[in-house]
């Protein structure tokens, strides 16, 4: 008797795994994110879960990765979702080239695919003959907003440095290009540009050393807020109050720093809503709406203490 119960339970859960999309009427959306160890994606997941509860007319299945570059498990996740027969896959690709082929297979299986956060490589898409819109923020534009705020304050000829994200990561690249555009527009003097791999402690160390080499710098553009915190701490221990810092992401920890002027600005790309908004777009397409095209830009906003 007990055995039968277990068997029944097992059968039910297998059925659930195999695709409850047919069993229930609600469409199933598979959400694939990058590292959940990253605050940004963690918040995004929370936002998506709330969104599922609020809308109540779809079923969310979310997966995250071990780390930022773990694209193999993203490929596996796509394949699993194809097997499960989900109605839509909403994905923040860990690699803009490697993910094109598995997503093409998903589209061929009739699944609505929404690419958000990081855009798939245009060249790779063309090669595979894939037409896919991108839903996401303009990282370069966002970085330029922060860079411009710095440039406006400091004026032409001011010496600045850039603290970059992981070399090779698309968003790191875009943000660096955005900062560099500000440097050009405001005729700033870029004295050094180095990576601190998105991390506070490394940014603290790297920036202290840059400051020793170039004591006359006036501004710092950090590609994320975690690194900006490291820079601010380095400035505090060096006793320098004359150097202006801007960051990116608007994580809660920089709130107090913006408020008391230790940081000039950061950029909010509303990560919490980004997955939820992409799911909305996916559900519209499932409901028979038109396919998305080109770049659906999501909001970004400069955050200052004004």
């Amino acid at each position: 008797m007990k055995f039968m119960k277990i068997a029944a339970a097992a059968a039910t859960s297998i059925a659930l795994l195999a695709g409850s999309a047919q069993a229930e009427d609600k469409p199933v959306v598979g959400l694939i994110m990058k590292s959940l160890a990253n605050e940004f994606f963690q918040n995004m997941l929370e936002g998506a879960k709330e969104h599922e509860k609020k809308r109540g007319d779809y079923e969310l299945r979310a997966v995250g990765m071990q780390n930022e570059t773990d694209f193999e498990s993203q490929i596996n996740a796509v394949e699993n979702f194809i097997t499960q027969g989900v109605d839509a896959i909403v994905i923040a690709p860990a690699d803009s080239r490697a993910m094109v082929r598995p997503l093409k297979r998903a589209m061929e299986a009739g699944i609505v695919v929404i690419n958000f956060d990081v855009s798939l490589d245009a060249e790779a898409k063309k090669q595979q003959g894939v037409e896919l819109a991108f839903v996401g923020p303009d990282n370069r534009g966002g970085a330029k907003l922060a860079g411009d705020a710095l440039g406006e304050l400091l004026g032409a000829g001011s010496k600045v440095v850039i603290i970059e994200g992981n070399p090779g990561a698309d968003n790191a690249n875009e943000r660096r290009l955005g900062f560099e555009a500000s440097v050009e527009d405001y005729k700033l003097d870029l004295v050094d540009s180095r990576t601190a791999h998105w991390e506070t402690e490394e940014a603290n160390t790297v920036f202290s050393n840059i400051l020793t080499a170039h004591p006359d710098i006036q501004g710092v553009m950090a590609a994320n807020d975690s690194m900006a915190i490291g820079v601010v701490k380095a400035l505090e221990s060096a006793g320098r109050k004359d150097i202006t810092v801007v960051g990116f992401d608007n994580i809660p920890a920089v709130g107090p720093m913006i408020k008391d002027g230790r940081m000039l600005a950061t950029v909010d790309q509303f990560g919490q809503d980004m997955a939820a908004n992409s799911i909305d777009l996916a559900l519209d397409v499932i409901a028979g709406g038109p396919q998305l095209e080109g770049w659906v830009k999501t909001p970004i906003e400069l955050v200052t203490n004004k």
Partner: protein
Amino acid sequence: MARQTDVLSESRSNEFSLRALINKAGIGLALLALIIFFSVFTEHFLNANNITNILTQITINLILAVGMTFVILIGGIDLSVGSVMAFAAVVAGKAITLPGFGTTEVILLACLAAITAGFVCGLLNGVISSYWALPSFIITLGMLNIARGAALQVSEAQTIYSFPFAFEEFGSAMIYGIPVVFLVALVLVLLAWFILNRTVFGRLLYGIGNNEEAVRLAGHPVFWYKVAAFTICGLTAGIAAIVYMARLNISSPIAGIGFELNAIAAVIIGGTSLSGGRGSVIGTLIGAFIIGVLANGLILIGLSDFMRQMITGVVIIIAVVLDHYRAKFAAK
């Protein structure tokens, strides 16, 4: 039995011999060469501020490397220290931001929490790898994942911030331009030196690294000695967590990724043998300096990030190859 006394007397007499002096000075000379090189080729290297910076920057790695020295001396390895540090920092971060307590209370509570977290992780590493005689490489690799997962779980992947002002003060305090956190690390080095050289426990750790069976046959509780070495390593990860928090004023669950490799590099560059039984914590101190001076100096010179990474790798390999010849030379 005879072999074991051999081991003990050999390493003790070595300590005062001329050869051992050359042996130890070898790595010190390498550091000196680096310092001279950077002093000549960069403008700011010998600035008081830059030296303060270097001392601050090597502190966490030095503390981790001191604990790592114990584990490597017994022929083990601990890959979990970076993750354990993050876990300890997150637990302490939760404690220090508890509402409704006084400043002193939360700081003490946080320190206690960090040290306990490190202690427990180290103890588990030691007990599991020693009881079943399993390679510590794989057990601590498991702990690397457990501690990292626990850090993310406890913090819900959020950076913890807003620590009491007094705690920040400690992180940036100086005595005659020397960061207090570095002095903490230095005290740990001296303490470790005393334990390793002046106590029976310490000498037996060398013995275990050279010939575990001999020490066992001599009737010593090898199991507990090995557990103690791993526990010390865990403890230093807890202490490193406190320094991390005081210095940066945040607890991040993704802190310390790859720190274990830097700590191992400091120990090995410092002349401690990866197969155990030979080495010293003073060497580790110099090894940590070499890594720190290199990281600092190469940025001052203006070398690109990628070149910097390559050169650091080259230096690690050169140090170990040189050490191979030094060991041969010393054994003659």
